[in-house]
């Protein structure tokens, strides 16, 4: 019975997926078909329709549209430029300084804009001409930009982590946010290590550091943008407000900042709203679809079936984690992060918890693993955007990207097997 239900669920799902149906529709239909197999028509339809409404009925979920909205408002040249200058002050002394500036810029701007695509586009637009001027190869500068762009998805505030919090049954957003810092920064540092050696080999110049007076000015002018992170994350972690309220505060703050910076025009408002509606309409519909999916899965006891199948291959927990990593990397290459987190968390989290893995630690593993797909063909969105802003072909960049890909996977293995990387900060803050 469970086997047949499982087969119906996955066959329908993959069939619809392969033919390019919207992923949310593939999830919904495969779930409804599986329900129809065990329940009368009316009950199946009624239960499913109800689940699609209750699936969004969650105050925490509001944090997603609000963080997306504030990210879009903050996504303007002025703020990106200020953060680039700030990054230059931090890492300008290393060989290939502009590449490091790009990586740190992505870590800062990516976390504020909450989108690897927005970050890769903004950083690429500013950094590529500068790097070309100093004689950097286009493939080199594009590869650094692409490899570091996904860090902003893990460094908080992060919508992916909120999605994980929801689908994992309410893991604390504050704890996940704190947990995201070390893995996200390690990713960025790993990229910088590779960029360092490549720059040494190519003898790329070290840029001149700005004067002390300029440095002071640069730091002061970056503070208002960085303050957003301090207020929002600080407020959430200190328990002053919930993640959702923090996101609302982020919206208000970014509006005020944009007005002060004179980046905010009333005629931009419709475009800002439309972009927010397009992104969040897609995400929320996926979430509600996956709420139905996980209901069907647990009704059919599928996670238990899958975990016993996995355990029959090996009962060694490290072996299982390696299998999970392999699947995450594979899935990440062809599926976007949000749907993949929504689909695979209910499948793998129970397995991981069965050998005592902390849900926060597992959240880092799954989000980090899937984010790597952002920089790989055939569908990596950071890869596409990074190539298009640098005006290089994807196949030209891929060879240069390979070493980055390698070190990021090494970091993923560290995150997977050293729980402290994820759990140290949340425990330090008592979350």
């Amino acid at each position, binding site marked *: 019975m469970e086997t047949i239900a499982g087969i119906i669920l996955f066959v329908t799902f993959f069939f*619809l*997926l*392969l*033919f*390019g*149906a*919207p*992923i*949310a*529709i*593939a999830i*919904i*239909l495969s779930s*409804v078909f599986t329900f129809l197999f065990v329940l009368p028509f*009316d009950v199946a*339809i*009624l239960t*499913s*329709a*109800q689940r*699609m*409404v209750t699936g*969004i*009925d*969650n*105050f925490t*979920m*509001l944090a997603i*549209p*609000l963080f997306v*909205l504030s990210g879009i408002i903050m996504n303007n040249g002025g703020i990106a430029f200020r953060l680039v200058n700030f990054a230059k002050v931090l890492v300008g002394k290393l060989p290939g300084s502009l590449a490091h500036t790009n990586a740190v810029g992505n870590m800062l701007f990516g976390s504020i804009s909450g989108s690897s695509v927005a970050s890769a586009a903004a950083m690429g637009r500013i950094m590529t001409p500068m790097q070309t001027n100093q004689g950097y190869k286009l493939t080199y500068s594009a590869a650094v930009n692409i490899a570091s762009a996904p860090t902003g998805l893990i460094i908080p505030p992060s919508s992916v982590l909120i999605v994980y919090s929801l689908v994992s049954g309410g893991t604390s957003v504050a704890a996940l946010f704190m947990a995201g810092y070390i893995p996200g920064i390690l990713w960025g540092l790993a990229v910088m290590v590779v960029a360092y050696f490549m720059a040494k080999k190519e003898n790329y110049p070290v840029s001149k550091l700005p004067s002390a007076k300029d440095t002071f000015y640069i730091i002061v002018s970056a503070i208002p943008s960085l303050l957003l992170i301090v207020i929002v994350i600080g407020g959430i972690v200190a328990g*002053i*407000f919930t993640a*959702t*309220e923090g*996101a*609302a*505060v982020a*919206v*208000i703050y970014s509006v005020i900042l944009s007005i002060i910076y004179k980046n905010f025009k009333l005629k931009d408002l*419709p475009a800002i*709203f*439309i972009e*927010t*509606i*397009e992104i*969040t*309409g*897609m995400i*929320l*519909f*996926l979430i*509600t679809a996956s709420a139905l999916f996980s209901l069907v899965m647990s009704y059919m006891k599928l996670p238990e079936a899958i975990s016993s199948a996995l355990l029959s291959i090996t009962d060694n927990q490290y072996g299982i984690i390696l299998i999970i990593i392999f699947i995450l990397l594979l899935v990440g290459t*062809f*599926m*976007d992060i949000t*749907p993949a987190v929504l689909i695979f968390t209910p499948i793998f989290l129970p397995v991981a918890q069965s050998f005592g893995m902390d849900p926060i630690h597992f959240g880092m593993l799954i989000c980090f693993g899937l984010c790597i797909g952002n920089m790989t063909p*055939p*569908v990596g969105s950071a890869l596409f955007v990074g190539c298009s802003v640098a005006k290089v072909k994807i196949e030209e960049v891929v060879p240069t990207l390979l070493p980055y890909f390698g070190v990021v996977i090494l970091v993923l293995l560290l995150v997977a097997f050293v729980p402290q990387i994820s759990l140290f900060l949340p425990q330090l803050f008592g979350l």
Partner: protein
Amino acid sequence: MNKVKQVLDKVLIVFSSLLLVSMVVMSTWQVLSRYVFNISSPGTEELIRYMLIWFGLMSAAYVFGAKKHIGILFIREKFSPKVQLQIEFITDVIVLLTAAILMVYGGIRIVMLTSAQTAAATGLSMGVVYSAILVSGICIIIYQIHSLTSYKERKREVIL
């Protein structure tokens, strides 16, 4: 049909934007009222949650119209343009049927079942909350009909 889509787009954008702004203001108000005025308002959070349901389902409907729901397209794109168009047509029909049966039929049933229930803090009828899925389903059907009627033209483009 193009006219209908344009009007529906506008209505959904304006409605969703208004909900979004209200949710921002109300959530900020919640923080302020708690710390500055020392009052807690359980009704606000409940209301925001219901607004989020409407926002989510209305913006999801809009995204169907804009054809921006993500799917895995790189396999489909391997086929010839003519076959791609046929697959797209079938996908559109599938979405239409899902909206009609699950969201409209299922939506009507669930609204009828719940219209007598009221929400705990605000006293709002749950039927109002659940009708979001019904309205969203109707919007999606309109978008899918619009998309399906445009295939004749697109087929001609492919042949040319």
